[in-house]
């Protein structure tokens, strides 16, 4: 009994550092934000007071919030399927024995290890009207000059492309690891049966990669709502909020406007959204992700 008590104490002590970090930096801020979202922003002469659902009413009536939400939705729809498909394609490709395989793998992975701000600055010049890389390519084929980041029609797509380019290389690594874990006997069996490359991928590789796809999907969704660095460097949410995403808007409200209560309210919405997505993915999709 005494031994067991000691073991329990030891166990908790070992857990304590991680738990403290989790509580201090994750759980408490979330709870505090939730509480704060029902109060007014404290000002020097006017301390915070309970305002009930006022902040949420303000949020429902805020056109920029809705713009940020719809932007974020389009951004997620644009990045998630494309970056996962691209990652899968690249992984299958560099998994084969091709010439210069290591180099190709490295080239695909490079975007992931570059600092985000530097990447955004490079892309800023790619998108520069007239003499940017993209313009030179378009110009070579006789296309018209476009102001990619400066037009409401193209700015969000331009940001989306940068995100896909950045994400695909990262997800490729997971797919590559999963592909290499597949038993080679399956490939040999398929070859003996005379299955085509496509059939082998569709009937064997792809289904076996489903757990990886789920993991990558979860990451992709989180990243789609976590995107902020590129926005700062490339557009600062402009033109006229065309590229304002939810997290960028939270930063703006919190640290440019100092409206901390409203920022907390927005944070709660983001948290609720992510919780919902996680619930769907873990509770629903995971149960269906089995090899049939």
């Amino acid at each position, binding site marked *: 009994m005494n031994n067991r008590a000691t073991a329990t104490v030891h166990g908790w002590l070992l857990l304590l550092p991680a738990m403290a970090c989790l509580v201090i930096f994750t759980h408490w801020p979330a709870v505090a934000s939730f509480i704060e979202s029902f109060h007014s922003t404290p000002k020097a002469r006017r301390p915070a007071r309970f305002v009930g659902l006022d902040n949420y009413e303000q949020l429902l009536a805020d056109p920029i919030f809705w713009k940020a939400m719809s932007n974020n939705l389009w951004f997620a729809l644009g990045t998630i399927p494309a970056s996962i498909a691209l990652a899968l394609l690249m992984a299958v490709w560099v998994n084969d024995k091709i010439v210069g395989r290591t180099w190709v793998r490295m080239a695909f992975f490079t975007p992931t290890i570059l600092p985000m701000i530097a990447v955004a600055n490079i892309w800023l010049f790619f998108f520069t009207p007239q003499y940017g890389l993209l313009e030179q390519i378009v110009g070579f084929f006789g296309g018209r000059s476009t102001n990619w980041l*400066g037009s409401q029609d193209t700015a969000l797509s331009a940001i989306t492309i940068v995100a896909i380019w950045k994400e695909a290389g990262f997800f490729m690594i997971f797919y590559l690891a999963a592909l290499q874990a597949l038993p080679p006997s399956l490939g040999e069996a398929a070859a003996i049966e005379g299955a085509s490359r496509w059939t082998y991928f569709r009937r064997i590789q792809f289904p076996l990669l489903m757990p990886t796809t789920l993991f990558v999907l979860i990451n992709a969704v989180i990243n789609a709502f976590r995107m902020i660095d590129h926005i700062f460097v490339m557009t600062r949410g402009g*033109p*006229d909020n065309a590229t304002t995403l939810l997290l960028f808007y939270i930063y703006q409200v919190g*640290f440019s406007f*100092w409206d901390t209560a409203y920022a907390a309210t927005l944070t709660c919405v983001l948290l609720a959204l992510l919780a919902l997505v996680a619930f769907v993915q873990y509770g629903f999709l995971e149960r269906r992700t089995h090899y049939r």
Partner: protein
Amino acid sequence: MDRREFMGGATALAGSLALPGIAGAQAATEIAFFYPVAVGGPITKLIDAYAAGFEKENPSIKVKPIYAGTYQETIVKALTAHKSGTPPVLSVLLSTDMFTLIDEEAVVPFDSFIKTDDDKKWLGSFFPGFMENSQTGGKTWGIPFQRSTVVLYWNKELFKEAGLDPEKPPKTWAEQLEFAQKLTKRDVSGNVTQWGIQIPSSGFPYWLFQGLSTQAGAILTNPAGDKTDYANPGVVEALQYWVDLAQKHKVHPPGIVEWGTTPKDFFERKVAMMWTTTGNLTNVRANAKFPFGVAVLPAGKKPGSPTGGGNFYLSKKATPAEQEAAFKFVRWITTPERAAQWSAETGYVAVTPAAYETEAMKKYVADFPQALVARDQLPTAVAELSTHENQRVTKALNDGLQAALTGTKTPQKAMEDAQAEAERILKPYR
């Protein structure tokens, strides 16, 4: 940054974190001082040298400069420190942050430190254009330090090619349009290869737009900072002129023009005239591979440009002794000789007319007369847009400007919407 500088920074940080009570017990008064870096050049080194120079003359005071990032990051750090109870004694923040700092009760006015006639003379020595963003309600809340205005840069070579006099910049809106039409080149398929003029509109379009609106005779806000006039006919007219340059006359790139790449477009000869800050002077001087000119902005109904840049602010939570020491430092660094030196080293406008009378300044501008343009523009300069809830009220205008420039709203509608939004935000402050 070498290791010694890093160690210096670390000690300074530790110093600023020490409790005021403990610091007060020591003989020397210590003033921690936050500052941002917003232009190119070895600003950190220069500031450290000023601090050392001041300490030498005032052994009882220790100045601890702390580099705090961009303007935006600096105010976030300063206000966070204020809310946690141990702010820096002195900070350099945007002049337009004045109302925000007053509302947060983070700063004290300088007036109570002005005691002698000499002090009064010093306070009256700054360019009045700069003081507009430093004073409200009869009090002086900020002392000008790193200040700028918007100026026009032009490529003399391209002027010559277009048959224009390379020594003559446009003087009026009409001339600016006419020159820009001559300077815009198109290839056979109609694609523009060289634009006549470029006014950046990313990030903070309101600042450059304020040049146009001032020239149209409109003032965007009142001195109390609780009312805006975005829907004024002059403002709409100014925006119409800007939109027309791009959409009607096609001499200005369409859509949003990036602030950061505008100087590069100028170096690449993709644009013949650009509007940007005088703070880019040193950058352009170093990178333009052709003779260039700098001029005051062309006049509409009248000439005009907004001022910009940073002021010194005194923390409210500092002890009286610390505030007094910080005040002494501010007075020291704004003497004509130091202001002249600072201007020559960075490209900022020197903050007092007297600085332009110093020997060092005379020598600098004899070699580089373009540096005088920003000063010559000051008599017609107006305060930079600054109100309560500054960032939010400014964003309303920025969004409207970008909507008009990208063609989703007419200038009239865009400015009406911006005014309605600003009205909603500012109502509680009246």
